[in-house]
């Protein structure tokens, strides 16, 4: 399929998802009711439904783009922001926030700080290796991930099973439920800035993927650029997961989907990856709030759709070879 038409179709799909998302939920909303100015319906629409939809679309786009950036920079189809410890850092931060602070905003801040700390630690550890190979970042990421997991385990051990432990477990499963509209603004702004930076750097990101030596020859300062790009992508992911909790598979799945559709690595693919991420997260969230009488963790659905897709991808590659 042509790149332009894939982007067009996916963007349409995302728009449809967003509209569906606005009208699916436990509180019955009707178009006539909204137009007639029914007070409670308007409140539910603007305070709860709209903010949740924005979070689903923007969060999915950010995770999709970040996933594309990671896979491209590391030239590894399994790379995702998780490999340099952003997810485990965010979880440990959130757990500390749940245990020692109070209020949802404080937990978001703690989780954001945890994610940032983990990434800075991983990148500075990698900087100790003067050869500047991208593999070093992966290795130091694994070390930081293990460290953050240990911290998380320690925090869980001290948590009350009835109260904090339940909150920590639920946070780790991820949910777009109950995120107040006020808390979305600063994170959304950060996400938009990061997205803009990444799209401006798209050419350089693609150059990173051709190989370090080639990129060097083409006049790209590999180490500095890689650091800047990874930091921007990670910042964006941290802004999303600190609000929603961990969301699995979107960052991994969206870039693969985009490449399958276009078979090329350039700006269009990055945009397509973002759009696919948005569709996936929005769709998963619609299911999470509507299939049962209760709210289900969104990662159940992103994984449910993501895992078979990944298997299919592997099988497909083997049959081609």
């Amino acid at each position, binding site marked *: 399929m042509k790149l332009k038409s894939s982007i067009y179709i996916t963007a349409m799909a995302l728009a449809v998802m967003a509209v569906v998302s606005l009208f699916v939920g436990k509180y019955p909303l009707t178009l006539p009711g909204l137009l007639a100015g029914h007070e409670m319906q308007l409140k539910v629409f603007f305070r709860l439904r709209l903010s949740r939809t924005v979070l689903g679309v923007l969060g999915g786009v950010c995770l999709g783009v970040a996933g594309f950036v990671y896979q491209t920079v590391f030239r590894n189809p399994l790379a995702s922001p998780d490999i340099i410890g952003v997810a485990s850092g965010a979880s440990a931060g959130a757990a500390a926030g749940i245990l020692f602070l109070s209020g949802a905003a404080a937990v978001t801040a703690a989780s954001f700080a945890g994610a940032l700390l983990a990434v800075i630690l991983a990148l500075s550890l990698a900087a100790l290796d003067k050869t500047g190979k991208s593999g070093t970042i992966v290795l130091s990421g694994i070390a930081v991930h293990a460290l953050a997991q240990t911290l998380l385990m320690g925090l869980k051990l001290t948590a009350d099973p009835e109260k904090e432990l339940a909150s920590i477990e639920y946070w780790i499963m991820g949910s777009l439920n109950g995120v107040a509209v006020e808390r979305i603004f600063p994170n959304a702004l950060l996400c938009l800035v990061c997205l803009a930076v990444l799209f401006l750097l798209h050419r350089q990101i693609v150059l990173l993927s051709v190989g370090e030596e080639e990129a060097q020859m083409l006049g790209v300062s590999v180490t500095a650029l890689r650091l800047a790009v990874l930091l921007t992508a990670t910042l964006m992911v941290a802004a999303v997961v600190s609000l929603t909790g961990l969301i699995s598979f979107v960052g991994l799945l969206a870039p693969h989907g985009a490449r399958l559709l276009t078979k090329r690595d350039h700006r269009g693919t990055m945009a397509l990856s973002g759009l696919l991420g948005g569709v996936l997260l929005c769709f998963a969230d619609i299911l999470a709030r509507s299939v049962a*009488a209760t709210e289900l963790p969104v990662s159940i659905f992103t994984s449910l759709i993501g895992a078979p897709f990944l298997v299919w991808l592997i099988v497909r590659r083997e049959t081609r070879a």
Partner: protein
Amino acid sequence: MKKIAALLLALVLTLSVAACGVVEQTQEIMENIAVEDELTVEAVSAYPVTVTDQMGREVTIEGYPETLVSGYYISSSALIALGQEDKLVGIEAKADKRPIYSLAAPELIELPSVGTAKEFDLEGCIALEPDLVILPQKLKDAAATMEELGIDVLLVDPENGELLTEMIELFGVALDCRPAAEDLITAMESIEEATMEALLSSSLPTVYLAGNSSFLSTAPNGMYQSDLIAQAGGVNVAAEIEDAYWVEVSYEQVLEWDPEFIILASDASYTVADVYDDPALAGCTAVENGDVYQMPSDIEAWDSPVPGGVLGAAWIATVLHPELVSAEDFAQLSRDFYETFYGLDYEA
């Protein structure tokens, strides 16, 4: 059908005691208990005694248990109510977090901890060499190990009112304190009766019970907390959800239910003020009318099946139906109960 049957039963019960008033009657019962206790010389039952615990295991206790370990706060609280606290040599973790111990049996806080159901200290428990160990049913593997080592273990499962009564009866036989067990059960039943007045109300208001971990976790049908609301003459809005543990719902679900009352669990990690200040809840009937309350937790978590848990339903009844169960009557009931069974001194 069930609801109608419960209502009829409540009607009959209340009419039969209407003449003297349930609260007075309950008080009388508890006063009698206090007198009886002083007079009763505990009859020594013939050991060895064989009992069936709440997992259906047959346990033969060879001699009168002099030392006990209790690994669950509900069994520990029941042991205090049965006057068995002096026999305890080990207790569950975080005993210092439960006000009832510091109020009724401060020496328990100093006892060695045997951990929680999740992290049970098997060796530590064995090292205490207790005559009898009481554990929640989750620890059945630990129980099997201890049995092999020759330590008697009773597994208990007090997850609702009925099972709690069964557990108290089990303790009565196993620990040779039947009269105390009977008194406790009688008192609990009389408090339940006092609460049943609330069921006579012509209106059953809707209630949203917000859980310990967050406002959006709630008690579905099949949870103890949901039963408490029904006993207190209310309708749990989340009863349409079938589950046995806290479930997560959304703000819009709460707004759609639009409960008349919001009650926060005893150990909620947020406050009533937080709920009033939450912009997402503005417009909800309970918030508009100022009907958000938190279950008291200064003595025990009344939303758990401890013996004093019968007061949980009574307290909710004072919130939902103050005209039928007054706050003063409730305070009196609660005071009498804890004075009689836990030796709390309210004057101090």
